[in-house]
């Protein structure tokens, strides 16, 4: 069935969108990731303008992170103070991200920048996660792994504006969580991804906060960043398509149900191997687009 998207001003196949939403929801349920890294490239691949894909994805992430954060909130796993500091950084990041997006669009390099960013980010994360999970699977044991204590690095300790975060039991310069948030904000507004898969390791290794609080706090931060990004995209460039968002959200909710049920059956390590392979697959596909000669080397854009 074709459905006409009022803001994108084009017709898309409803089945494809629903399938995509359900698949991404399923993955969110299994892995606890937002899945924006799959949705945004796929929407662009379906012919949606990149700006609409990114803008709409932001509103979809609001729904996903809100339902996630509610659960963590109830269990008290959200460090609001730390999350708020990160949020401050992410607001700045998303404003700059929107400007960078506009600039890239203007000089005609957005369809180069998006794949390169995806390939770089997803490729790196995929390889790191694959190596880590394979080593973990081989060890077969539960021995506590020695973590790289980046948060004890003298350079990080030397930063000014130190603040105490009692819930996470850390004493750190606000520039560190602010900087991580800034990066998250950039990702939301340029790539249309929440960036949980990047924020979570950063919060563990760079901030050194307790693992228990990481997921809830990063979701808390992502929720407010994506809320802000949604309003900004809607206000500045009219690129939030509510019909598309609705389709993605509804099918995503159904997918999450199945995903959560699956987690009881899949071992965490194998799930991580699968996720890392998926990240690598998406980045290889996007890398292919960059190096394989396009069917037509000319493209036309309506201004």
């Amino acid at each position, binding site marked *: *069935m*074709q*459905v*006409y998207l*009022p*803001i994108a*001003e*084009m*017709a898309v196949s409803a089945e494809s969108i629903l399938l995509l939403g359900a698949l991404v929801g399923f993955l969110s349920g299994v892995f606890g990731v937002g899945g924006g890294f799959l949705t945004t490239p796929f929407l662009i691949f379906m012919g949606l303008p990149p700006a609409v894909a990114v803008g709409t994805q932001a*509103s*979809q992430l*609001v*729904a*996903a*992170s*809100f*339902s*996630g954060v*509610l*659960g963590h909130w109830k269990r008290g796993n959200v460090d609001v103070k730390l999350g708020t500091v990160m949020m401050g950084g992410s607001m700045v990041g998303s404003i700059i991200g929107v400007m960078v997006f506009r600039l890239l669009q203007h000089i*005609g*390099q957005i*369809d*180069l920048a998006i794949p390169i960013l995806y390939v770089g980010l997803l490729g790196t994360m995929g390889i790191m996660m694959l190596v880590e999970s394979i080593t973990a699977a081989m060890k077969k044991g539960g021995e506590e792994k020695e973590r790289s204590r980046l948060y004890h690095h003298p350079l990080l300790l030397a930063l000014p504006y130190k603040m105490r975060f009692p819930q996470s039991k850390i004493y750190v310069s606000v520039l560190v969580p602010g900087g991580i948030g800034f990066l998250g904000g950039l990702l939301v507004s340029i790539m249309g991804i929440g960036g949980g898969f990047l924020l979570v390791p950063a919060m563990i290794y760079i901030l050194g906060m307790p693992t228990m609080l990481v997921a809830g706090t990063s979701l808390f931060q992502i929720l407010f960043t994506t*809320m802000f990004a*949604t*309003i*900004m*995209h*809607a*206000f*500045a460039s*009219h690129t*939030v398509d*509510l*019909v598309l*968002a*609705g389709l993605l*959200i*509804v099918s995503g*909710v159904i997918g*999450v*149900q199945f995903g*959560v049920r699956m987690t009881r059956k899949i071992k965490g390590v194998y799930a991580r191997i699968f996720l890392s392979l998926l990240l690598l697959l998406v980045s290889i596909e996007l890398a292919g687009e*960059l*190096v*394989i*000669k*396009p069917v*037509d*080397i*000319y*493209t*036309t*854009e*309506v*201004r």
Partner: protein
Amino acid sequence: MRLPVLMIGLFVLTLAALPALAQVNNGALTIDLAEKSVNITAGFTGANLSLFGTKEQAGDIAIVIKGPERRMVVRRKDQLAGIWMNRETVGFRNVPIYYDLALSQQASRIAPQETLRKYGIGLDALSFEPVGREDPAAIERFREALVRNRQIDGYFPLEPRNIVFLSDDFFRANFYMPANVPTGDYSIKTYLLRNGEVQSINETQLRVAQVGFNARLYRFAHLHAFAYGLAAVFLAMLAGGAAWMFLRRD
């Protein structure tokens, strides 16, 4: 006999349409559109458009459908360090966002190139004003690419459509507008040509627009952008909250 029935039908149609046909018409051409607008609804998958006409003189007919003009940018990718990226750019100022054409016979037999060019009949006859480049050979390559890109996406025709003559002076043309047809005010011009000269022109308007829920949503998004953003956030949170409650139960 079908013809008299059709003729009566046409007569009724034209009578009904007469007050609406306020365009300049020297009487040699009478045109009627089966639909005065293309309404894009949530389930829009494209629209058929039928145009009926009569001519009171001998000659050929050319029908041109043109959407509003926009500025378009054509980019050329080249390999740099193994990566295909946009390198050269040419902008064109006055490109119709949609163009379609029906002819009673081959364009070259209807009129000489100058006449076709003057009235913009046929893709080859459309002249776009380039911005930012001077080299004519390059401009021509980019212009060809523009036409090719727009053809592949369905905004320009691959070849002219036929005009069906139901009698010597009564004709019909069928157009199809795809699901991705751009919105805007379109003009439909019908030309009567004889001996390579335009004898008569009839112009009628066609409005391509979203209607119903879609149109309201579009207007909301554009006229009250901030409120729309807030609404998008609110609805997303509502959906997320509902999803959480739903998940929590089991």
